[in-house]
């Protein structure tokens, strides 16, 4: 798996976080993991089809998710309810849409499936995929990670 796939997502995170949240994220070290597990308190899964096929899993803590929605709404958020998870899902959807645009500039034509939000860290779901890349991202309101597992369609 090539680093440029994850770079397209990282660039999209930078743009969307600056635009929507006034936050400048910073990337940390990329690691390779054996499979993808939705092990965070708030997980959002996006499927990719087209020249690249696979999935991307975003994992956030509860605190960071509530803070993100607070910045957007200007209101204190207390729990990971349908409003909060839907807002988070839409942010990830926007990020992924931008990432697909970035990938198209690299010559990959792809599409994304609607985001699937998985709340609750005990709901671990093994994606049973090939190896995945994990990119931890640091922000002033917490840390989150992007896991990506895609292959090129011949």
């Amino acid at each position, binding site marked *: 798996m090539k680093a440029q796939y994850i770079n397209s997502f990282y660039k999209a995170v930078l743009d969307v976080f600056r*635009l929507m949240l006034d936050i400048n994220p910073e990337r940390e070290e990329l690691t390779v993991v054996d499979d993808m597990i939705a092990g965070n308190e708030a997980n959002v899964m996006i499927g990719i089809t087209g020249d690249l096929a696979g999935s991307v899993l975003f994992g956030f803590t509860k605190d960071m998710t509530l803070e993100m929605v607070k910045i957007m*709404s200007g209101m204190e958020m207390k729990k990971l309810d349908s409003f909060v998870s839907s807002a988070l*899902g839409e942010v990830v959807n926007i990020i992924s849409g931008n990432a697909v645009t970035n990938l198209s500039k690299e010559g990959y034509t792809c599409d994304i499936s609607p985001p699937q939000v998985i709340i609750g860290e005990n709901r671990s779901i093994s994606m049973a995929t090939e190896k995945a890349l994990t990119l931890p991202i640091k922000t002033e309101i917490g840390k989150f990670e992007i896991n990506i597992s895609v292959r090129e369609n011949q």
Partner: protein
Amino acid sequence: MWKEKYKIGVELIDGQHRELFRRVSDFVKTVQSEDKWDEKLSKVKETLEFMKAYVITHFDDEEAYQKEIGYPEYERHRQIHQRFKDEVQKYAEKFQEESYSEETVQEFGGKLMAWLINHVAGEDQKIGDFQNRGGSV
């Protein structure tokens, strides 16, 4: 919810955006309040009816303005508006089917807020930028 950085420098459009943000903000406040769902349902329905009509008025006005200044991305922008209107319509149908379930209305609220912020802070700014450059690409 509204931020001054969302202004694009066109009075009519900025005014409508402010109103949209105000309404979405009210809507979120209502659906997130501790009151019983039955008690807030009339306010929820009223806001949804207003939004449905207002979004169309605003999109029409904004598209007319883009045409007037010869905005080159008019067609692409119109399609983004159309996809959003379709999405709102789908939710409106779902609300009817489910008699305005709290879960679906909350879901709609979250999506609407994030969509609006991204659209106004991103896509709509390009209209202002184009106009500020004197209408050249």
